[in-house]
């Protein structure tokens, strides 16, 4: 597993979001506000986001950690920790 920079992780999440909600402008996402308040996502979209991130980063995100992925910044921090732990 190659180490991932925070920037790579952020890009992976933004790419995954683009696949779910093609109408969003990635630059307009406020990193500290809940994603689901900014992007029209339901639980199905959110599960697809988790699956997509899993495919890109190879990190399995257990359901009880979903709450840690509420904001973009929160998701980057969480995934960076998980990536580091897998080294």
């Amino acid at each position: 597993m190659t180490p991932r920079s925070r920037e790579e992780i952020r890009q992976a999440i933004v790419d995954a979001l683009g696949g779910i909600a093609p109408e969003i402008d990635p630059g307009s996402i406020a990193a500290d506000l809940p994603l689901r308040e900014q992007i029209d996502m339901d639980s199905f979209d959110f599960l697809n986001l988790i699956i997509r991130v899993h495919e890109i980063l190879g990190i399995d995100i257990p359901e009880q950690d979903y709450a840690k992925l509420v904001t973009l910044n929160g998701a980057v921090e969480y995934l960076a920790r998980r990536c580091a732990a897998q080294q």
Partner: protein
Amino acid sequence: MEAGTLVEWLVRPGDEVKRGQVVAVVETQKGAVDVEIWETGTVDQILVESGRKVPVGELLALLRTAGEPVAGAQDISGLQEAAGVEAASVLSGASPSRAGIPPVSRISPVRPRVSPSARKLAEELGVEIASLSVAETGAEISRADIERAAQAAMKAQPAIQPASSDWQSQMRKAIAAAMARSKREIPHYYLATDIDMSAVSAWLSSENLKRNVTRRLLPVIPCMKALALALREVPELNGFWIDGAFRSSAAVHLGMAISMRGGGLVAPAIHDADKKSLDQLMADLRDLITRVRGGRLRSSEMNDPTVTFTNLGEQGVDGVFGVIYPPQVAIIGLGKTSEKPWVDQGAVVARKVATATLAADHRASDGHSGGLFLATLGKLLQEPERLR
């Protein structure tokens, strides 16, 4: 609910077709709908060329069944039905610019997929989707492809005025018509009950813990199964009110209210939901939502839900009292699951609770049956391990 535009034929005269095969694509304001055929045989004659707007019930083609001589070709009754029913029957959002869609013979066998957003953009910019080749766009036509095509067209012919799109307003009209008819004709009664969701939530968490992320179940899945099973116990909620009488349905085809990106909603069916495993229901729901948002539904899914389920709890509402989609006779709602004080054997405890609601047609059932249904649903959700 009056017409749709035949966008594309997927068969031509002489082709063998099987029951259930997708034979044509009809554009409605709910997006493109695949039209299935309900007979097995040979296509004898195509009566409606692609690009034409057709009213509900229009004969689309003639089919020859096995052993039948060419001269005795019969109407494709299934096709007639398929094109004529509610889904394909919604008013078409077609603009005059669609009229030039090339005939079947020129359509490549590899059909690119078009997202609803790209399709909408194409209408706005006046780009003929059928004119784009797979070589240019790949298997999926994106907004970028449409923009490129529009720019190329602008350069070639700067005088072209883009056709304005009214797809969204057409869909709004279809929803308005169905809902107004419902409130005009159907004497709704409404029931609500709080259901203890602790058992099913705990069971689902432990189940999902064992599963890889790609195989996880959404919380709505066990609820779908439970309500499909509960409907078997109370058949007067499952079926249609047609010509002044209730016709119950032996099959439970669960119409799932799915919102569309950019507004509007559809409620296509998950067929035989009572007989499917939770994994199968998840696979079916995934497939259905993906196709709703990717712009490809089958006519049978749009036409034959026997009841509707709306899960507005996602948006954080406690309960939803739905408007029945005619000619169905019931709509079941589920609000959000949240922790609430609950009295259990004399003690107040914190439990995960959700409000289940029922709006039902009083011509077809009474409150007593409705209450029985909600009680059965609540009971089934207490034993999630049995919902297999």
